[in-house]
């Protein structure tokens, strides 16, 4: 891809990410603040913490996995695996066909 195009793409990616993540982070931040308030003000509100902590743990795990996958090129040639999978399947079928007793 020519360099100016690549730069344009990068700018668009950053703008799009900010567009979605900005409000989402704001929403999340305020809700998290409310959670802390509930937790502080009312002991019985503590039960709200369990599902949230559960979610945060799972979410963090997936964020790490996502980062790892991106860094290891899992999304680089993003359509390639669908062709490979069919190729593999065809090869297995060919072996099976050649081995079948009545083939």
């Amino acid at each position, binding site marked *: 891809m020519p360099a100016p195009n690549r730069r344009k793409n990068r700018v668009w990616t950053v703008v799009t990410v900010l567009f979605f993540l900005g409000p989402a982070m704001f929403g999340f931040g305020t809700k998290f603040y409310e959670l802390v308030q509930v937790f502080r003000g009312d002991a019985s509100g503590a039960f*709200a913490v369990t*599902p949230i902590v*559960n979610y945060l743990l*799972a979410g963090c795990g997936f964020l790490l996995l*996502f980062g790892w996958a991106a860094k290891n090129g899992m999304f680089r040639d*993003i359509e390639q695996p669908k062709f490979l*999978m069919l190729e593999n399947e065809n090869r297995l079928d060919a072996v099976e066909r050649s081995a079948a007793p009545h083939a």
Partner: protein
Amino acid sequence: MNAPEMESSSAIGPESAADLERLVERKLVLWYYFAALTYLIVSMLGGLLMALQLIQCNELQGIELLSPGRWRMLHTNAIAYGFLANAFLGTLHWAIPRLTMRPVLSKPLSYLIFAAWQIVVVSTAVGILLGQAQAVEWGETPVWIDPVALLGLLLVAVNFMAPIAGAKGPMYVSLWYFMAAFVWTFLTYAMGNFIPQYVVCGTNAGAIAGLFIHDLVGLFVTPLGWGLMYYFVPILLKKPIWSHGLSLVGFWGLAFFYPLQGIHHFLYTPIPMFLQYGAVISTIAVEFVVATVIVNFFGTLYGSGRAVVTNLPIRWFYTGMILYFVTCFQCALQVTLTFQQLIHFTDWVVGHAHLVMFGVFSQWLLGIMTYLIPRLTGKEWYSRTLCEWHYWLSATSIVVMFLDLTMAGLFQGWSWSSMQYWDHSTQVSQPFWIVRVFAGLAMFSGQIVFIYNIYRTLSGPRTAPATGLQPATA
């Protein structure tokens, strides 16, 4: 690593029939299917008994061991852990080695897991009938079985993760789904069965139990189901999935949005409103994710639409997908507070549960069995007509049951909201409950037809190479 440098997983693979035998343990897949179908029948008998009880036709009244409350739990547990889990495990023994070109970690371990899982399921059934159910919905497995079941799930993860971890290069979307399902199921099972039992109590435990029911469907059944569809649909249509990129959007969307949704089962409860709204918003986010998945599968079908008529497994799959869309459309309504006022605790929810569990996931698994059984046994189906009967009885009965229970739910909701006495709502429900018995009988007959067809197929001679390339069901 750059894309061209990546070693593809097709770089290795079986060259001979013996290699192929080593790759997939066909006998075990069949054993899993037999176990699954046995529990399906047991579960359906439980459902029928419960349905008869609700129309006051219970001939077993007074026998404590066979009381309806216990049969109801047997019905749901035998479906989840007996039918769905066994059918999924069997199919994974076929799909994962073929997708990764590597066998599972250990075949003896696979057989051990098979035996251990049957012990878990049978002990659960016996425990429930003896009145030892744990007070967690869908986690009624008696407390003494929980650690064994959890160990079983851990072994399953280890056994299947080995070939997935060994595969090189960018992973196909099915493998993402499977990998996540192994981790999620283990964590979900541990959370639902141990935390409310030993760690927290009261509303706290209720919230966790709700999350558990929800996650069991969304993080165990859903990723395995979709992962298998991403594998079987392209190989049966003989063309790749429309967009692999879009399929990954579906996967990561599920990963990030699904776990927060559990609280949508608890709208109008003492759980703080901002958490309830959070669950509503993430449910809406998942609706978008679902739309991408559906678009992707119909995009794949585009140009091969006739396959839905001529290829029976494809027909099972796409029927399930349409019903999945209906289920999610229902969710979009159910997640609003206005709608909850009417349908909460009514048969609407029971209709929804049957639609997703039977209409979607069981139909996918039955379609997979329809495709794989000839390949596993080397024998074509004894009767294609019986295969068709199996499909039509199953598909029509679930649609009838779903519409019937949905209507029942609305009538019950209206009865309650108009402050009628309780018996009014049960009287109003009678016609619907009677229809449910007949729909159940039709669904049950469909499965009996399938089992008879399998029996005749197995007792027949080996046929021409049933490699699935030209399946009788195609």
